[in-house]
């Protein structure tokens, strides 16, 4: 009988425990971090009663969390993935909103700016048209600045956010180390630690919202937390502090480091996932690329306009100069280089970076690394793909290295062993779009050189317009606003008999202006009115020529290019350009910048000139209705290539805007799939560990009945006992 009481009592207490566990489940039904619990029962050891073996009742083994480690890990991973995308997506949406539907902003401003030159074509001297060009230039500059400011702002805000998130990581890892300490204190016997384990998992899930971590559990339930590189954030009851510090390559930006006692290690590259990973990804990769691309576009525009503007002529008869800031001014070249903060001091090396070819530029920064052992030996690494783009050894300064459209010049001293430098060629690119011109007369809408045919030319030959290639040659006199010298191109016939004295005979006719056609041009060439020519010339006519040379005198049309500074007395160029062979449509001047006949401009004569015909090339003084440079400036979008694939300025911007919208689009898609995966993981987790009230209600009924039945056991036992007593 005692057995029945004992069995009844054990069943009562077991069912009571089950009922209170159900109560606990119902009470926490709405807490998403709560893990539902259930009670495990086992029957008590059997006892031998005579030949029979009877049970001793029930024992509760303890309250178990209904839990699956795989599902929990999946939940954490999905959480960190979703948060990483979500944070980057938020930043991208801001950029995307700024760009509108892809047709606003700089694209329109660039078109308006170029159209302002178009509008000036009709009346290039008009101040209103010129003022409009300047206004549009300022609008263009502002539209780039406003996007650039947004990029800068985002970079700052991302860095702040990184610092905030780092604090949050530290507070979670510190709580986790506390929980670990408690769990270790309880040891393995801990039956009541379910709430602590829930807390531990909640903190780990919170940590996953910030970054992706790896965990390892020990038997007592304490957890070690690691970064993907294996660096521990939490080791037992010890938490390692994560903190931000300025990058050694760029003091404007921050790295993340872990503190281990007195030592610290940079761990930025091992942080991924979660809000922290997402912010780092956006700041250091996506935003960085946007910024480089935008700066390159701005530099391209500044370079295109500046180059063309320098080929022009202003309303003060001066050469154009730069319209926007000079992309290769001395201070810009210097600020593109940042010495690593760990370089040997004092540093005396000076480095400059010039952009020599915009279309070959990569949208990347570079690092220059000097060997730690061999003096002057260097590697230059392109950071976008970690390719070594240049290497060698500096033996003397100044010395220049060229790669990727850049010219890097080392001067003053060779850098020390182990020195490193960060090159940011596109740095502050958008700032170069600020116009340097304030006086509208200084906008160069004309071209500085004009050609003309002499009055009375008898041949059908015509001279082309002059195409200016560069005003940076000796043929331009900036000081006197003139050509140095203006040129005269004069045709005449040259006899084969006098070819040996070409120069002298031609020189003989130089004093005549040649502007009036000679009625008998064949006579003209050998007709030496001055100098030593008569003696050489007389030889063929008086000597043995008639007998020994039956062939007639062959003459051919040639031309001289003369210095026309004094039109009454055209003089030789130095060195002289005489007796040149005429080919219709051929370049008149050299295309080789080293040649003495490289004038910086080009023209050609087509058709058939006659001896005595002449053409002149002059400085376009007061040629204020000349709109040729305005036209060339307006057409830069079609003629200037911003990259190796030959894309125009406008297309360069289109592609930039497209890269923003493409990235946003990708993150739209990525985020919705990450959200779906997270939902799935949450649902899996809830399926396993969540509380279902209907289920609890049915369990409640079940255990209530079991409890009643257990109570009945004692009741019956008492009745049986009473019945037995009543026998006596």
């Amino acid at each position, binding site marked *: 009988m005692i057995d029945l009481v004992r069995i009844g009592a054990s069943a009562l207490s077991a069912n009571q425990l089950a009922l209170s566990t159900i109560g606990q489940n119902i009470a926490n*039904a709405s807490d998403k971090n709560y893990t539902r619990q259930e009670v495990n029962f086992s029957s008590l050891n059997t006892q031998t009663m005579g030949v029979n073996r009877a049970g001793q009742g029930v024992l509760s083994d303890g309250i178990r969390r209904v839990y699956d480690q795989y599902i929990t890990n999946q939940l954490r991973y999905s959480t960190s993935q979703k948060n990483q995308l979500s944070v980057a997506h938020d930043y991208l949406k801001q950029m995307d909103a700024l760009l509108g*539907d892809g047709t606003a902003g700089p694209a329109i401003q660039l*078109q308006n700016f170029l159209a302002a030159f178009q509008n000036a074509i009709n009346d290039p001297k008009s101040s209103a048209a010129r003022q409009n060009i300047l206004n549009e230039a300022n609008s263009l500059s502002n539209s780039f600045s406003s996007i650039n400011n947004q990029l800068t702002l985002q970079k700052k805000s991302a860095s702040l956010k990184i610092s905030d998130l780092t604090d949050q990581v530290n507070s979670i890892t510190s709580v986790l180390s506390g929980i670990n300490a408690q769990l270790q204190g309880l040891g393995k016997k801990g039956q009541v630690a379910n709430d602590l384990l829930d807390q531990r998992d909640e903190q780990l899930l919170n940590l996953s919202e910030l970054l992706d971590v790896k965990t390892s559990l020990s038997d007592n339930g304490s957890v070690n937390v690691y970064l993907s590189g294996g660096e521990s954030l939490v080791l037992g009851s010890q938490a390692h502090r994560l903190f931000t510090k300025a990058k050694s390559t760029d003091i404007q930006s921050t790295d993340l480091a872990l503190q281990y006692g007195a030592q610290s290690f940079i761990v930025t590259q091992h942080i991924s996932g979660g809000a922290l990973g997402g912010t780092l990804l956006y700041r250091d990769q996506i935003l960085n690329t946007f910024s480089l691309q935008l700066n390159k576009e701005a530099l391209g525009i500044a370079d295109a306009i500046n180059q063309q503007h320098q080929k022009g002529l202003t309303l003060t008869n001066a050469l154009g100069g730069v319209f926007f800031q000079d992309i290769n001014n001395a201070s810009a070249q210097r600020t593109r280089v940042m010495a690593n903060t760990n370089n040997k001091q004092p540093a005396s090396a000076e480095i400059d970076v010039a952009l020599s070819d915009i279309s070959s530029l990569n949208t990347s920064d570079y690092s220059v690394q000097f060997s730690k052992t061999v003096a002057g030996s260097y590697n230059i690494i392109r950071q976008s793909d970690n390719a070594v783009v240049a290497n060698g050894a500096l033996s003397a300064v100044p010395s220049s290295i060229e790669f990727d459209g850049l010219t890097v010049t080392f001067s003053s001293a060779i850098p020390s062993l182990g020195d490193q430098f960060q090159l940011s060629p596109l740095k502050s690119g958008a700032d170069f779009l600020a116009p340097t011109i304030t006086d509208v007369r200084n906008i160069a809408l004309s071209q500085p050189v*004009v050609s003309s045919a002499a009055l009375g030319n008898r041949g059908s030959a015509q001279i082309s317009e002059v195409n200016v290639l560069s005003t940076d040659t000796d043929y331009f006199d900036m000081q006197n606003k003139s050509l140095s010298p203006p040129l005269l191109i004069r045709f005449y016939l040259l006899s084969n008999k006098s070819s040996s004295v070409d120069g002298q005979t031609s020189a003989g006719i130089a004093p005549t202006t040649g502007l009036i056609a000679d009625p008998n041009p064949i006579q003209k060439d050998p007709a030496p009115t001055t100098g030593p020519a008569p003696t050489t010339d007389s030889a063929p006519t008086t000597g043995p020529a008639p007998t020994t040379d039956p062939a007639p005198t062959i003459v051919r049309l040639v031309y001289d290019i003369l210095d026309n500074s004094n039109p009454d007395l055209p003089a030789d160029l130095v060195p002289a350009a005489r007796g040149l062979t005429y080919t219709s449509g051929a370049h008149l001047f050299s295309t080789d910048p080293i040649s003495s006949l490289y004038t910086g401009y080009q023209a050609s004569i087509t058709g058939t000139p006659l001896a005595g015909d002449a053409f002149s090339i002059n400085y376009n003084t007061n040629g204020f209705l000349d709109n040729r440079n305005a036209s060339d400036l307006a057409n830069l979008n079609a003629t200037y290539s911003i990259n190796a694939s030959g894309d125009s300025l406008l297309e360069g911007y*289109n592609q930039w805007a*497209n890269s923003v919208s493409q990235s946003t689009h990708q993150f739209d898609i990525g985020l919705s799939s990450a959200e779906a995966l997270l*939902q799935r993981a*949450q649902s899996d987790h809830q399926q396993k560990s969540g*509380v279902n009230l209907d289920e609890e209600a049915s369990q409640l009924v079940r255990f209530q009945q079991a409890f009643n039945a257990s109570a009945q056991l004692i009741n019956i036992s008492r009745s049986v006992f009473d019945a037995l007593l009543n026998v006596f």
Partner: protein
Amino acid sequence: MRVSTAQYYQSSIFGLQNLQSQLSEIQNKISSNKKRLQASDDPESAIQSARLQQGLASIDQYDKNNKIATAQNELMDSVLNQIVQVLNRAKELGIQSNNGALSSADKNQITTQLQSLATQLLDLENTKDSNGNYLFSGFKTSPPFTQNSAGVFEYEGDKNNKQQIQVGYQKLVSVNESGYDLFESITSEVETKSLLNTVNDLSHAIYSSKETTNQQEIKNNLTHLDLVLDHISAARTRIAGRLQYLDDMTQVNDAARLESKKLISQLDDIDFPAMVSELNLKTTLLQAAQASFAKISDLNLFNFLN
């Protein structure tokens, strides 16, 4: 499958929110008549649309330039037309003066008339356009034609430069003519003489035409005048051709503009019927979701336990 109670509520709310945000996006698209609210909604069509719109802006610019070029060329043509009329009058006077019966008073009168015609011609050759720039001075802003103290007309403008304006991709059209080419460099077998000096010389020859040599001089100048008229007529043909070209370009641009606008509309504008039917579908779905949520959340075992 076990469904936790919290999860049931959470996923129901998520489903409702999702439908509501889809409805709001459809509503935005309908009210703005735009397929894309942001470029990121469809980056590929966004960049295509941007390129087309940029092309459209160029077409508009070309059209604007075309109107200017047309006006300038029409002005030149009208000036040349007037010059031809004046020259014809001068020619009549010259022929009239060859009549031996003229008195010296008559000759004086003809000379005076010719001088006044020369002044008119000078004014015409120095015509300014609507911007106040000389039509026939090339790149120069100073008056191209002047008369020196000896009464001889001189050209001080540009020699072979003319302003050009862009009316299509790589299509330039002249908007002025060099006065040098038009009126100055008129070369016959005998001489190169300007229009004004031909009239001037004719007038001088008539004034002193008692001498027989001057009869020949009058004849020579009349011959040269014919050459001048031919020369100007050739220039007018050139200008007429240019005007025709400008008109053709306008039509080409109109066709291109229409095509671009059609493409842009296809890329940007919503398909209205499809959008409205989607709106109806989503509204129905939302209503169904709301109704089922209300119904199912009412089912709870506790309601039946007493």
